């Protein structure tokens, strides 16, 4: 009966009269392609199920690389569009922007000198105390090609990949702090999982307090700033709306260097077990509209890869 009903549906018979087996048989014989959709569907599903994982993986990489040039081209077009929109600015505006940049450069030059002095002090202390040296990173700036931010996953595609020596798991940052980490590296592009992604989880700490806590991303509601959560917070730590606490990265997680901003905590409450505290972390709103990010590639790992 089910088959007969299926044939009737497939043939587009809109009559709801009684079932006639002879008529259905003749119809099926007359139109051999009747019932094709379901048969093909089942066949396609079976075929896909039987395809070895290696083939599926190869197909995935192929289709990924196939579309990568399209996203790169769109990104270049956008940059080109930005360039021409900037060209329409008046010379006075450009002069003002140039002056601002010169001031910023001077400030950064001073800070750079301080940084070098501090670096020298750190290395002197490391030698004196025979401590292992802090991890060093190479910075690779990359443009964002596309953003996929929904309730299921939060990731961005960037315009650099294996061609620039990017590696999976590398930290990704921007001027506001942590962006996320590299999840997949392809030939010319890479996928970055954002800090706001529900699957993102790293070790963190409060600014000025080196006891580790766990940070993890969460589902974000629309029209709200992205957020995550922290757990395993010691009971003596406090934060409220008037004095929000900054959450920063720690090198305990072996991904990020110390002190990069993750977000701010405005309230803390007891966890379900009552031993620790949990809280919501407000991330920077700019995380939702990033155009450029920096990938931190550990130099030790890079050297090891080069030696291989």
């Amino acid at each position: 009966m089910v088959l007969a009903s299926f044939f009737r549906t497939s043939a587009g018979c809109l009559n709801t009269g009684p079932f006639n087996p002879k008529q259905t048989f003749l119809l099926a014989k007359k139109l051999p392609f009747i019932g094709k959709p379901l048969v093909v569907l089942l066949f396609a599903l079976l075929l896909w199920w039987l395809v070895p994982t290696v083939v599926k993986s190869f197909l995935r990489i192929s289709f990924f690389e196939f579309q990568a040039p399209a996203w790169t081209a769109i990104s270049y077009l956008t940059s080109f569009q930005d360039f021409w929109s900037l060209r329409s600015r008046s010379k006075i505006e450009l002069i003002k922007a140039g002056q601002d940049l010169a001031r910023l450069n001077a400030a950064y030059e001073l800070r750079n000198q301080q940084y070098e002095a501090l670096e020298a002090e750190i290395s002197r202390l490391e030698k004196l105390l025979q401590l292992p040296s802090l991890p060093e990173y190479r910075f690779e700036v990359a443009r964002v090609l596309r953003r996929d931010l929904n309730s299921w996953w939060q990731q961005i595609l960037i315009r650099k990949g294996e061609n620039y020596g990017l590696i999976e798991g590398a930290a990704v940052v921007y001027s506001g702090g942590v962006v996320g980490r590299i999840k997949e590296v392809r030939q010319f592009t890479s996928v970055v999982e954002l800090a706001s992604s529900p699957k993102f989880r790293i070790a963190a700490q409060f600014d000025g307090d080196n006891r580790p806590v766990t940070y993890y991303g969460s589902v974000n509601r629309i029209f709200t700033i992205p957020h995550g959560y922290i757990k395993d917070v010691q009971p003596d730590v406090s934060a409220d709306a008037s004095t929000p606490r900054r959450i920063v990265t720690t090198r305990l997680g072996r991904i990020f260097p110390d002190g990069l901003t993750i977000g701010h905590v405005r309230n803390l409450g007891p966890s379900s077990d009552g031993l620790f505290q949990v809280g919501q972390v407000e991330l920077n709103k700019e995380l939702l509209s990033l155009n450029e990010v920096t990938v931190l590639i550990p130099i030790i790992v890079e050297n090891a890869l080069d030696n291989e």
Partner: protein
Amino acid sequence: MNEKRQILIVFFTTLVIYIIVVLLNNILSTYSIHLSLDSLYLLFPGLYMLFWPGYLIVAVIALIVDALIPLPFGTLFILYSLGYFLIRQFNTRFRKENKSHVMFIAFIINSFFMLAIALVMSRGSFFDENYWLRFLTDLSLSGLVLILIAPLILELQRLFLQLSGISMTGEAIND
């Protein structure tokens, strides 16, 4: 020759629609909004093309979309195949010329896709009210946008084929 041209044109127009949807989501991401308009990629092949050429386009588009998202590879291929076969199975039940029918099909197929992905991805978040609230918001917004643009997109694809000198007469459905 005509059929090959038709396949190529429909494939590339569908690809352009996909790129536009991604660019739109790039802009909307600033407001934490995401539009899933997957059923747009199936409508034209499902309603106006012969069975195999239409399925070929749907399968390739599904694999292209699938390659960039963190679902197990092939999930969208299976979902798109299901959606395509649903359209083919019931294409005699509705009128392609009727905009409300097209809107209805687009909405139903899209909601089915979104619900399936939401269930696949809900591990660990199944009892999280935020997850389902965000899902319902995205579902409603995507549905609304889809209802508004689906007939227009279909019409544009048809127009593009006509401008390319390919007649749709006699090539449509009921295979």
